[in-house]
């Protein structure tokens, strides 16, 4: 990761935190809710299942529960927010000259290993986010901002587990 291409530096993290906090406040002020991410994945899956396998969609409990509490899977706050994230991330990367296809990992492992573990990590996270009713953005960050007990509990569980398993996963990163 040398600076041959004069890549722009990342923002100061404290400033970044304040900005993120302001985005969060704005979200609450406008919509009465904080940020989130995993819910959007859920919405897409639900919409997908509804299109591909409507009979199963009607019968299986998970989808019918969702259907009863939401009007349309894709007309969801989180899905639109996530689309915004794609644009925002892209803009930031473009401005900073960080747009590039690459696989990020520790130099000690192969790309293939990294991709495999990325998928595995995603599966775990996807499952866990549904079980925990939120991910780090929705439950931990937003939850902490409103002082919700659930937010703190989930955050402690995520970070605690990650710390505990860090030793075993160290080859992936360092």
């Amino acid at each position, binding site marked *: 990761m040398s600076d041959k291409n004069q890549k722009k530096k990342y923002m*100061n993290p404290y400033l970044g935190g304040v900005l993120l906090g302001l985005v969060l406040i704005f979200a609450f002020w406008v*919509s*009465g809710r904080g940020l*989130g991410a995993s*819910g959007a994945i859920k919405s897409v899956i639900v919409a997908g299942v509804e299109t591909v396998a409507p009979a199963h969609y009607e019968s299986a409990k998970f989808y019918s529960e969702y259907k009863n509490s939401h009007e349309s899977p894709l007309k969801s706050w*989180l899905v639109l927010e996530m689309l915004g994230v794609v644009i925002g991330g892209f803009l930031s990367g473009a401005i900073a000259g960080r747009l590039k296809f690459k696989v990020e990992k520790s130099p000690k492992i192969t790309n293939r290993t990294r991709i495999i573990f990325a998928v595995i990590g995603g599966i775990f996270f996807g499952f866990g986010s549904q079980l925990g*009713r939120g991910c780090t953005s929705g439950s931990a960050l937003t939850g902490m901002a409103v002082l919700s007990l659930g937010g703190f509990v989930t955050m402690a569980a995520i970070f605690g587990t990650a710390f505990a398993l860090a030793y075993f996963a160290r080859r992936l990163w360092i």
Partner: protein
Amino acid sequence: MKPRLILAATLVPLGLIIAAVPENTTKPYKLTAEELLEEVKSGTQFMQPDEVAAMIVAKDPSLQLIDVRSADEFEKFSLPGAVNIPLPDILNSEWEETINQDVRLNVFYSNGTNDANQAWMITRQLGYRNNYVLSGGLNYWAETIMNPQQPAETSPNEEIAKYNFRQGAGQALGGGMEAAQSSSMPAKGAAPAVVKTQKKKKAQGGC
């Protein structure tokens, strides 16, 4: 190093302030005494028995009758679909969602108008909307709806129409009322379901 110090220097004092200041839990909009007096003078809080009867007969879902008498009196007789909130309990937190909402039309009633009016004044002073008083209370209700006076033959059509309406309403309600009298269970059973749908619009969320 510096940003951290700036951050600390800003947030620690702000944190101290926010920790020291008592929590702001009052509802933002409360009426002043003058505003309340204006409303009392204009009498906008009253709903006539005819109006209420019409809504009951039409099964208008936005109507919510609230009986502010004691539980005993409520059990002996109550209007169809009414919820019992005895006046002394009106500020209990369990009823807050019922009396503080923007969706339904709450109509307080008692035997006369005194108690219902008091309930209205208390809730209105808190800034709650959509609360009304049944004009004349159950006494007037009995006179007009339950035992309407037959107008003279020469009365204007309006009067006769009103009488016919009241007769019909009385019969329709009479049937409902008997059911309420014989077993207060249906009335009570309806109450919990009703309370649920009155939820003030809350923010949706979840990740």
